[in-house]
């Protein structure tokens, strides 16, 4: 009996219908929080007392609260969570998380290691871990080629100041752009 209710709950949590209700609820909560943040904005002059910096954000957040209630209400009214399939449960969460983590680490490491090294490492990891490429030749050649093209176009031709890194990495980057 306990197992059955647990699997019911799991199916419910995995269903899109569940998220159809939870998402607008979360958004309503976020809107309410941002309303309190907007409350602190001051116009700085009596002239802007009525239509100060918080006027428009509050208008938007107020309408958002209303729309969230409508969307959530629609989902409950339609009883979507009872019969809908569970597309979210079918996602490849592992690969998605790996891709997101690799990109996040890449973005965070750009200023330390410089664009060249960080981009090559990012591309090798993405191709090897996320796309599970097992051809060493392509795994090495493709990132070098792609990064080279990006540096030539963005840094050399278009003069975009791509990050060079710090210390020894900066010296290394300066050899190329």
């Amino acid at each position, binding site marked *: 009996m306990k197992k059955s209710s647990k699997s019911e709950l799991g199916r419910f949590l995995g269903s899109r219908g569940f998220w159809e209700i939870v998402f607008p609820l979360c958004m309503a909560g976020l809107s309410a929080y941002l309303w309190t943040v907007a409350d602190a904005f001051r116009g700085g002059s009596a002239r802007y007392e009525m239509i100060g910096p918080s006027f428009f*954000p509050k208008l938007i957040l107020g309408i958002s609260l209303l729309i969230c209630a409508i969307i959530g209400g629609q989902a409950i009214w339609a009883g979507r969570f009872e019969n809908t399939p569970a597309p979210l449960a079918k996602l490849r969460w592992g690969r998605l998380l790996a891709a997101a983590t690799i*990109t996040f680490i890449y973005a965070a490491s750009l200023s330390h290691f410089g664009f060249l090294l960080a981009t090559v490492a990012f591309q090798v990891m993405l191709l090897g871990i996320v796309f599970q490429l097992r051809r060493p030749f392509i795994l090495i050649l493709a990132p070098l080629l792609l990064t080279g093209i990006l540096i030539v176009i963005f840094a050399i031709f278009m003069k975009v100041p791509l990050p060079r890194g710090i210390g020894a990495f900066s010296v290394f980057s300066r050899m190329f752009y």
Partner: protein
Amino acid sequence: MDILAGLLLVASPEVLPFLLLGVVVGLAFGALPGLDATTGVALLLPVTYVFSPLAALVFFCALYIAGVFAGSITAILFRVPGSSEAIMTAIEGHQFTLRGESGRALGFAMVCSAIGGLIASAALFTVAPYLASIALKFGPTEYFALALLGLSCISAMTAENFAKGIFASLIGLFLATVGIDAITGGKRFDFGVSTLLSGVPFVPAIIGLFAASEVYRRIAVGDVAWRRTEGGGQPNLKLPRMIEFLRIRWTILRSSLLGLAVGILPGAGATTASILAYNLEVQASKDRSGFGTGKVEGIAAPESANNAAAVGAMIPLLALGIPGSGTTAVLMGAFLVHNLVPGPLLFVQQPDLVSGLLVGITLSNILILLFALLFVRLFARLMLVPYPILATGILSISVTGALAFGDTNMVMIMLCFAVLGMVLEALEYPLAPIVLGLVLGPIVETSLRRALLISDYDPWVFFERPISAALLAVAALFFVAPIVRAFRA
């Protein structure tokens, strides 16, 4: 105005190479995400010190016009808008690529862009000063009504789930309030992050929403096999046949005129023009069902409008010395660098330069057709690349494009938008209204507040002025009509 003298000047060996170079550089800047025509003009401004004034100005105008078109190349092929003006083309045009018809979509985009630009060029020659003076009659109430008209296309785009469409646009409108308040100068929703003081950066946001989120979505659903991209193969660029062209002639004409009108308005811009033209086309179409799934009119309208708007933005600059867009503001710098002051006196003191410049602008639109063929072929070859390599390239370009706008914080913002885009798409919220909100948000807010301040908080001010009342009535009609139709269906 002596057109022949202008033509001879532009055809001279001192100017012609710079016209050609401007088109090529503009196509390169426009096609690459994160770089646009404004960046191109700003970056290359110091390079042109040594050019003659006409060569420099023709170079920048060609760069600007080609850059506005080029955003559609990557928008159609990879759903990565090279520039913000191509946002509606990304939504409609990429559907053609998924069907293996990218060549057809690119052909339509090219021809419609060129024609839109040429129609606006004709206005530039004939009625520039007159049109510019009308544009100056637009006050905050008219701008507010115009922006609402732009937002009204949400109902047409999302009639099946209007509430979700409205919510998505509210996300965009809210994000547009982040940063320094344009009226009081107060900080809003920056949460201590200095990057956010200048607002949510538009280009990293759309790169994240459309390009990076699509890669993550495909990773999540496991659609990343080692094969060509959908519609891959050697895409053959297909220019529209005469019968196809004649079928959309009114679409091109009305979108070009709308684009021209919006382009002339200071601050409205080519992105707003393409959104409004798409909206107008949806409303004017007898069969609205195909929009969003790859319809020729959905490409023709925004592409004609954005190039017409780019040329239209030159009208207040040249006729009145008022820059109508970000790029024309930078272009004004190019005039000043060469000791020229744009405005009515320029037409009197430098008639040859003005006629040469106008001919240069017109020729740029024709040259787009020629050079775009080469660029399209170059980018289309990327479709032959297996998806894992292409996806890695798209993510890398997305990051580099975001970096072109600032530091690594821009990359983080781009990634946040990628996550937002993926979550919203998974829950069937449309992404396009977010962009509408983000583009039109600043216009809606500042014009609403200014109008209310000027009128001493009288809301009737929006209905007292004829242009704003008419625009509001049309916006209300556009909002309500698709919902009524959906209910009836």
